[in-house]
């Protein structure tokens, strides 16, 4: 029996380190895969005739990687805790629609070599994945802030040229809430998504 103790302990140790290695796996590969899938969709469904199908598929892929609930919550800031769950749900829906409308044109222009996912700075459960985007001869940094939720890495902020999406909307929304309240904000956002 004594002969078995050491191998047994070593086995336990190996299993433990393997498990922790899994848990601490970074987000960089997930981001690369998402970017690749977006490029594949754009390449396989080009032009105006495929526009509707292309946009639906792009939104599906984006929805799997981006945590719109978290982005909406963070963009609203302290006001989030003051509204009802129904208002929160509606806000997330309107916010997601607005983001889709604002950025879909850009996403549809992505090509194979445009986005280079370069590195990651992980501080589990958060991670910062850095990429460079080449567009019309300009190269600019595009970083993703992700959070590991139940084993899945999800984006909660995007930073372009050191300007964060959440911080930008937070500033804008705070001003509107101060002057017209939450109702004024959501009405304004709805109007923007409809035009």
């Amino acid at each position, binding site marked *: 029996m004594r002969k078995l103790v050491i191998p047994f302990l070593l086995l336990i140790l190996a299993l433990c380190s393997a498990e922790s290695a899994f848990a601490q796996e970074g987000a960089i590969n997930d981001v690369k895969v998402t970017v690749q899938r977006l490029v594949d969709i754009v390449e396989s469904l080009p032009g105006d005739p495929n526009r509707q199908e292309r946009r639906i598929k792009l939104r599906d892929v984006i929805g799997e990687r981006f945590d719109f609930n978290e982005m909406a919550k963070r963009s609203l800031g302290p006001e989030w805790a003051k509204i009802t769950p129904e208002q929160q749900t509606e806000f997330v829906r309107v916010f997601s629609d607005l983001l889709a409308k604002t950025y879909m044109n850009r996403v549809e222009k992505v090509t194979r070599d445009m986005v280079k996912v370069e590195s990651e*700075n992980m501080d589990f459960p958060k991670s910062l994945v850095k990429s460079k985007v080449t567009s019309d001869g300009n190269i600019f940094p595009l970083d993703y802030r992700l959070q590991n939720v139940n084993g899945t890495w999800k984006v909660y902020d995007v930073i372009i040229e050191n300007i964060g999406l959440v*911080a930008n909307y937070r500033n804008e929304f705070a001003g509107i809430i101060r002057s017209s309240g939450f109702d004024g904000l959501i009405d304004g956002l709805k109007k923007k998504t409809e035009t």
Partner: protein
Amino acid sequence: MDQLKSSDSKNTDHKNISDLLPKRTFSLEMAVGIFTLIGVATLGYLAVGLGDIRFFAGSEYKIFAEFDNVSGLKAGATVEVGGVPVGTVTKLELKDPVAKITMMIKKDFKVRDDDIASIRTKGIIGDRYVKISRGASETYVAEGGTLTDTESVVDIEDVIGKLVHSLTNDKDDDSKKKEESSS
């Protein structure tokens, strides 16, 4: 006469003592005063700039924040929320590959873990400071905690340059589309 003589001798004594001391002229007094001021100012600068010496230290707590770039930010810069100071930057250091700053925040201001710290400039040519925008989280950053959601220094001229460039390109795209649809 005697009185005069005795006063003379007193005068002589005074004259001897005062001979040993430098003459108290205005310029001398001025130099001593300035020298003292410089000495005190240097001590004050060393205390604040190099050390962690804070007045009313018990009413503040220490947190950290990490940035890609803190160029232009200095120790002593204010930390503000909505333009109101809530703390001070006390230290900047390198935590390869990021820059780590230390901030002393007033105890009655609780920093949330999704607050965003951005390095901004007062006006076009003013000093850099740290602006905190408030998040929605109910979890607070404790003493010694770190804010990771940050925005580094933005060179506004670069951004405007790239924005103008991209707007121009969009116009080209739109005019191309019009040509294609009309032909």
